[in-house]
Structure formats: structure tokens, C-alpha cells
């Protein structure tokens, strides 16, 4: 199973204390192979975001183990988790979460600055990624001057510029209209297919689910179904 990027074994996550404990995940087994695009779907409170956060090292399981690219996250310290997120995981958030005081290109560069990439190299890579995503003309604008769709594309550029092994997207289309959502999904598809980046998204959006190569449906903290899409939307 050396091509597994994500491996969750019997993962349980309980929030709160004994009195008002909420079992967000209950003994979930979840694996994602390299190059897959898995969409975690399910109603609110089903545990999809919790699973996404555990896979991204943003949260720790109450029980069970999470392995990302061969590293067992349970054993990592807070700073080691930070390093893992920085070097192996790209995040795309529902609310874009760009740094408002930085321009688009600086936002993309920022993560490379955290990694210590040399200035000339990071500027070149940032501009190249923005160009590939069709954003070269808005590089100097700050997030406040961009549309929602543009901001989310910049967020995607920031997430992939470091060539992470895993791209996690939490409700990436929640704030976008249908046309922009389709543009974003086309972009993610290209990243998945052309760059071979493994993607896991948590979503309510059937359009997003339709574009994933695999749909994992969660309900009440358990995986209800896990199906490989024989013909994702873009193949149709």
C-alpha cells in the first residue's frame, strides 16, 4: 500500500466532556490513494469536516490513527504537525482566508516564505502558478480588490504552489456561484489529473461531488457508502 497518501484506521473523534460528549467520528476507516480525488459528502454534523481536519493535521483523533504520506500524525508534536501541514498539505478553505494585507502574488509567495524558499525562486514560482491558473493579470491586487472566484483561485494557487502531496478543500464552492464553481472544479480537476495531486474535499455541493473520482458519504460519524465514480462529471 505504498501508494496510499491518507490512511485513517478506526478513527474516533469525540468533542466535549463526558456530560455533553459529541461523537463526531466513530471508528472510521478511510484511505486515499495517490492521485485520487475523494469527495467527503454528507449532511451537516455527519463528520466530513472533522475527518478532513484530522487528515490535515489540524485536529487529533480521540482514538485510532491517521497516517499522511507515511507519517503517523498521532506521534507528531505541535510544531511537527505545523511542519507537515507546511510541506505536505495544501489547504483551500471555504472563506478563502487570504491574508488581506498581501497582494495575490504575495499570498501565493507567502507559504514559500514560510518554507524558506529563496526570494527570486519563490517569486518565479508564484507568478508561474498564477499564470497557469489564469490569474497573471491580478497578481498585484489585494484580496479586497478581487471577486470571490478570483480569491478562491488565488487560494488554490497558494495551496498548490509548494507541490503538496495532498490538497484538502473544505467546502470550496460554498461562497461561489455555479459558473465560478465550475471554473474552480475544472481547475482542481486539472491539478488532479495533470499534476497528480491527491485531493480530498468536504462538500455539500452535488456539483463538487460529481467532479470527484470517488464519493465517500458520511452519516452520524460513520462512512455510509464509499463509491468510485466510474464517470465523473467532466468525463460525461
Amino acid at each position, binding site marked *: 500500500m505504498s501508494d496510499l497518501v491518507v490512511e485513517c484506521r478506526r478513527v474516533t473523534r469525540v468533542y466535549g466532556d463526558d456530560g455533553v460528549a459529541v461523537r463526531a467520528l466513530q471508528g472510521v476507516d478511510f484511505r486515499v490513494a495517490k492521485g485520487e480525488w475523494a469527495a467527503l459528502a454528507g449532511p451537516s454534523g455527519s463528520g466530513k469536516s472533522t475527518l478532513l*481536519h484530522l487528515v*490535515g493535521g*489540524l*485536529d487529533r483523533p480521540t482514538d485510532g490513527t491517521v497516517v499522511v504520506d507515511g507519517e503517523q500524525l498521532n506521534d507528531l508534536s*505541535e*510544531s511537527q504537525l*505545523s*511542519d507537515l*501541514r*507546511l*510541506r505536505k498539505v495544501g*489547504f483551500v*478553505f471555504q*472563506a478563502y*482566508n487570504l*491574508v*488581506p*494585507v*498581501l497582494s495575490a502574488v504575495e499570498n501565493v509567495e*507567502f*507559504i514559500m*516564505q*514560510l*518554507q*524558506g524558499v529563496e526570494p527570486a525562486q519563490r517569486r518565479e514560482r508564484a507568478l508561474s502558478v498564477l499564470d497557469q491558473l489564469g490569474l497573471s493579470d491580478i497578481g498585484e491586487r489585494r484580496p479586497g480588490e478581487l471577486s470571490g472566484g478570483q480569491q478562491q483561485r488565488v487560494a488554490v494557487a*497558494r495551496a498548490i504552489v509548494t507541490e503538496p502531496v495532498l490538497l484538502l478543500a473544505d467546502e470550496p464552492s460554498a461562497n461561489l456561484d455555479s459558473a465560478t464553481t465550475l471554473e474552480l472544479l475544472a481547475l482542481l480537476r486539472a491539478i488532479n489529473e495533470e499534476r497528480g495531486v491527491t485531493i480530498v474535499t468536504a462538500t455539500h455541493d452535488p456539483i463538487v461531488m460529481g467532479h470527484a473520482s470517488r464519493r465517500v458519504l458520511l452519516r452520524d460519524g460513520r462512512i455510509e457508502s464509499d463509491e468510485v465514480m466510474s464517470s465523473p462529471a467532466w468525463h460525461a
Partner: protein
Amino acid sequence: MKLTLLVQLSWRNLWRHRRRTVILLTTICVAVGSVLVLNALLRGMQMSMVETAIDNLNGHFKVLAPGYLDDPGITKSFELEPSGIPGLSAEGIRGWAPRVRVPAVIRSERETRGVQFVGIVPGSEDISFLGDVDVDGEYLSGPDDRRILLGHALAEQLETGVGRRVVLITQGADGGNRESGYRVAGVYDAVGTGIEKAFVFTGLATVQDLLSVDAVTEVSVRLTEEARGPSVLGDLTNTFDGLDVRTWQDLEPQAAMMHEMADATVSIWFLIVMGALIFGLVNTLVTAVMERIRELGMLRAIGMRRGAVIAQVVIESMITMVIGISTGVVLGLLGFAWLAEGIDLSAFAEGLELTGLRPELVPQLWAQDVFLVVVLSLVLGFLASIYPAHRAVRVQPLDAMRR
């Protein structure tokens, strides 16, 4: 993580809310500037009091016969070597002046007053206020001059003046009265009327002749620099073994106390102003952090370490302080330059005389005070950032992004 990135982020964050930042910077600027100006005024007052205390015939040190301060008179005197003060190195000493000072009664044809009759070597008195005193008439020509100098206020009381004769009566070493008539060579204007009323000057040899002694009652020593004080004090104590060597602080305890109070006042004022300011800074930083909780959570989520989050807040605080302090120092220097010519306080001259202050207050801005204000402000700025930084780093990435 590169410091330049943190500085860049902090700098831009600082200007997110321009008005708030400008208000905060203005507050720091005014606080630092006002502390420096007040500091300069207090230093000016402090030095004015010290100069007055030293000028008023004390010097930095004074050698006296034991018991003279309790019972001043010619019986408490001592003899000087003709060569001066052997064993006292010239380094750090501006000069020294031997004197005979005895209580006396001065009588004009109209009035009688009690005074201090002081025999001086006029050429040596550049270490006291006599060195640059304004004299109506003539200054004394030498230690053998048999004329006297009167203070302006005393001359008015005695209803006498330049060229007129007065009689001085004092007590000799044998306990008998000594009396002699003197012509008034000049009338001097001192800083305070207290001095003018108290001291009558003549040549040292003149008083010694009157009292039939070769002795002096005091030797004042003035330094060029305070730092030489301890070594000169040691030399004087060795040279005048068995005599009393007193500092100006011993002789003018009130001035010494006010001198120390000025130091404390500077510190207290600084702490009050900067203390109030720091609360404002903490409040602003906490507000800025709370406004950016989501963003800080996101930064943590994508891999920014806790240390970098803390450093970002601390750097933001330090940038604020550096800008505020720099402009504050410039404001303080401008204020100092504006007041550098001195402030005329002659309208309060009577009250000032009691505190030993001169009627013109000349502010003094010391480099060490500026340095201290700058360093302490930076330290306070750093301390002020600790709590907001703690708040910033305490929030977990997930919690922050859920908000």
C-alpha cells in the same frame, strides 16, 4: 522563518486601521516628547539648585575646623600651609578658595544688621558666585584690600552705598570685641536677596588683621567634573587630617534632598505616562489580534509556527514603539530647542529663592536620560506585547477558522 517576512506582515498589519494606528502613534509621540521636555525642565531645575548650592560659598567640598558648623567663629579656625593645599592633585579641580567667615554686626549711620563677615582672596573666588557677580562700584582688588563689598539688599537696609563708610563689629579669638570702619568698594547683585543680606566681603588679610590671626575658617574646593569627587574627597581627608571635610550635600541638605527628589520625579513621571500609554498599547494590540483571529488561525493551519505568531505580534508592537518613540524624541528635541534659551521665572523670584532656584530656568537634556527613556519605552513596548501575543497563540487553528 525569515524575520523579513514577519516584519513585512507586521508593518502592513499596522496600517490596516490607519486612524487607530495614527492615534496610537500620536499618543506615544506626545508621551515620549512630553517626558523628555519635562525631564529637561526638571534636570534644569535640579542643576540650578545644585549650582546655586555650590556657588553660595560651599563649593563641592568645604574644609572646616571641627565644631565650626555648630559654633561658627574665629575660635574654630585652622592654619593653611603658605604653599596652599599639598597633596591635592590639580586634575579635576577647578579651584579652591580660603576664607575667614565670622558672624558680625554691620552698622551704618542709620541702621544696624547682623551679617556674615567674610575675608576672601578675590582672585580665587571664581569658584563661587563672586566670580561673575554684578558689582555696582568696584570689586575687591586683593586679599589686602581694606574695603568691603555689600549686597544690594543689605545696602538698601543700611541706607548706604558705594564710597560710604560702615562699621563692622565681631569677636576676636580672645573673646574680645573687634571693631573697624570700612569704606564700601562696591554693591553686588546676587541671585537671591538672602545672599545679599547675609554676606559682607573684604580681603582675607584684612579680616585676619582685625582678628589677629593667620588662620582661615574654611577652604572651599570646586571640581571640574563630579566624577572626580570621591578621589578629591579622599585627598582632602588625608591632607586635612583632623579637620572636617564636608560635601555640598552636607552643607545644603535641603538642596541635596530636592536634587534627589528631582531624580525620583523624573522616574515617577515617566512611569505614570508610559504606564498609561502601555495600557492603551495592550488594548490596541489585543483588539488587532482579536480582529485577526481567523487569519491567525489560517496562518497556523497552513504551517506558521506558534513562535512566528508570537513574533508577529511582538514585532508589531515594537514597530509601533520604534516609530512612536522616534517621533517622540524628535518632538522632545524640538520642545527642548524651543525652551533652550531658558524660561524667565523672575515673577516668582521670591518663592524660587527659598528652593535655591535661579530666576531663569534653563532646561538640560541629558543623553543618558534620552537613552533611558528610549530603552525603557522599548522594554515596556515588548512587555505590552506579551499578553496580546499570548492571546494570539492560544487560539487553535480550527477554533479560529470556525469563528
